[in-house]
């Protein structure tokens, strides 16, 4: 029954993706950025769905199981303030420049902004390397979820394959419009089903007050931050959401907006969406102790699935599993498409293969589809050989993207910034990231010297200093380039 519900859901996903194809215009711009016609609601759901990964939902409840209610403040409420603020100051400006200059990818923007092919290539490599663990987590998360829900009847590789095939089908067929439509459908599914799971499971546990009273008796330390989370960790964890400013898939979604006003609804509603998804996730993670005490380490990441299995009727269990699948696929699709777009535009087209800049629209779409397929095949193959400890890499992936944030800020707001400043910033991130990663990746909850300071705060500060020093020590950029990206009415930068 559970499997039937999941297959029915996947059928619906394909149907939505297929329907979006009716609006396809056959051009590269339509395939890669939906001809910049996405409206407010679709933009909100795409941005939110893309950012809410299975890691966020399953990982948050697992983290709350171990660390208590403080996880909400650390991961959710900080994002509720910082992510839409980044959209406001960075995303909208990127959209305007993208539309003005016909930009299709993040690398294209940085390459043109600092007039440097080398910088574009370095960024391309860094962004892909940081995205790989993120992709793997999505594909492996899908396999693990299906395996858990079906109590081992469906092997992990089959679940991963299913996720890859469905995503490949609608991304290849529908391009970014298909992805946005499906993301909207999937985001609504996991938000609604998350709410249903919250109500059903809490009712089984004696209601919210009953569950909290039982928890206060059994494990009162989970109701406070106490020693679970250090104040410095709460403070420095706020750097992590800055990663949205450098995610290639978020950049791609910003470019799809129909107009500047399209951002208004997403900006205002995004914090509420975060609360709607994370309140159930963290609450259920904490009260999970009442039904499943004593889970150790990563086993707690399955607490939501276990609670669903124990307390929800079979049809609902299938629906909720579909909700987790929705979270997995709504991120994976955008990530894969953004990488496919970068390969097509920043490598094949830019370096003159397949017709170079004169490449026909049809051929651009073909290359985009081929790359999406190749990336998913490669990710699926890698997912079969890498260890499950890859899940530990998620926070390190976010750390890398967040530490690159000064680059986009300098590009958008500081006229005097130079390509050497950007390269110095990337180099500092690479060196420090490798240093901290080698010291801490085997230690869950690693902080610098055990102080509570997250490595991201140190790397981000170094990256910002490198950007400033590197720029000031080198020749100012060409006035023509600056004029192109800083129109006269733009008061930003000096």
């Amino acid at each position, binding site marked *: 029954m559970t499997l039937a519900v999941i297959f029915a859901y996947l059928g619906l996903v394909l149907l939505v993706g297929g329907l979006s194809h009716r609006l396809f215009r056959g051009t*590269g711009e339509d395939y890669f950025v939906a001809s910049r016609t996405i409206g407010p609601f679709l933009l909100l759901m795409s941005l939110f769905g893309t950012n809410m990964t299975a890691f966020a939902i399953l990982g948050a409840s697992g983290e709350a199981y171990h660390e208590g*209610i*403080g996880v*909400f*403040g650390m991961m*959710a*409420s*900080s994002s*509720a*303030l910082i992510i*839409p*603020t980044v959209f*406001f100051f960075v995303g*909208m400006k990127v*959209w*305007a*420049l993208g*539309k*003005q*200059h*016909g*930009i*299709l990818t993040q690398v*294209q923007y940085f*390459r*043109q902004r600092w007039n440097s092919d080398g910088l574009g290539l370095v960024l391309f490599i860094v962004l892909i390397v940081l995205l790989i663990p993120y992709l793997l987590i999505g594909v492996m998360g899908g396999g693990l979820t299906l395996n858990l829900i079906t109590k081992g009847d469906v092997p992990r590789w089959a679940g991963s394959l299913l996720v890859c095939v469905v995503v490949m089908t609608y991304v290849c067929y529908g391009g970014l419009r298909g992805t946005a439509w499906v993301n909207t459908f999937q985001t609504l599914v996991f938000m609604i089903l998350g709410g249903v799971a919250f109500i059903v499971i809490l009712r089984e546990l004696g209601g*919210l*007050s009953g569950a*909290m009273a039982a928890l*206060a008796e059994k494990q*009162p330390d989970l*109701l*406070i*931050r*106490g020693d679970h989370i250090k*104040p410095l960790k*709460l*403070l420095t964890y*706020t750097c992590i959401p800055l990663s949205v400013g450098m995610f290639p898939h978020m950049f791609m979604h910003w470019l799809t907006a129909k*107009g*500047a*006003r399209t951002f*208004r609804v997403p*900006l*205002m509603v*995004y*914090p*509420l969406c*975060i*609360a709607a998804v994370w*309140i159930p996730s963290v*609450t259920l993670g904490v009260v999970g102790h009442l039904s499943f005490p004593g889970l150790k380490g990563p086993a707690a990441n399955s607490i939501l699935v276990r609670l669903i299995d124990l307390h929800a009727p079979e049809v609902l269990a299938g629906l909720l599993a579909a909700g987790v699948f929705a979270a997995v696929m709504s991120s994976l699709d955008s990530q894969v498409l953004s990488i496919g777009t970068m390969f097509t*535009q*920043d490598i094949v*087209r*830019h370096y003159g293969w397949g017709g170079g*800049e004169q490449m026909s629209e049809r051929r651009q779409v073909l290359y985009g589809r081929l790359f999406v397929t190749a990336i998913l095949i490669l990710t699926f193959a890698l997912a079969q050989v890498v260890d499950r400890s890859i899940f530990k890499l998620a926070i390190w992936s976010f750390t890398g993207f967040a530490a690159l944030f000064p680059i986009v800020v300098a590009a958008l707001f500081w006229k005097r910034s130079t390509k050497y400043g950007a390269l110095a910033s990337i180099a500092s991130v690479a060196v420090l990231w490798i240093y901290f990663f080698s010291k801490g990746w085997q230690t869950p909850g690693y902080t610098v010297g055990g102080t509570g300071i997250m490595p991201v705060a140190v790397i981000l500060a170094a990256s910002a200093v490198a950007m400033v020093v590197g720029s000031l020590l080198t020749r100012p950029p060409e006035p023509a380039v600056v004029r192109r990206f800083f*129109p006269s*009415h*733009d008061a930003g930068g000096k």
Partner: protein
Amino acid sequence: MTIPKWLLYLLILAMYVLHNDLWLWHDSSLFFGLPVGFTYHIAFCLGAALLLTLLVNYAWPAHLEKQAEGDDGDQEGQP
């Protein structure tokens, strides 16, 4: 009514500071059925939504729409 942009930007900083609710660190009392430290951060999300609403209404970068349409000669992708 208008609200100066600088005041709204200052409010963002104030919110960032308020995110660090050290005074509730060890308080396990329940408020609206949830631990008070949890309820506080849920309220913080509502506050963030309100702040973003103010930014959208009183600090809107109206020039961006013009900027996006302003350079017709440069519309094709330039990889």
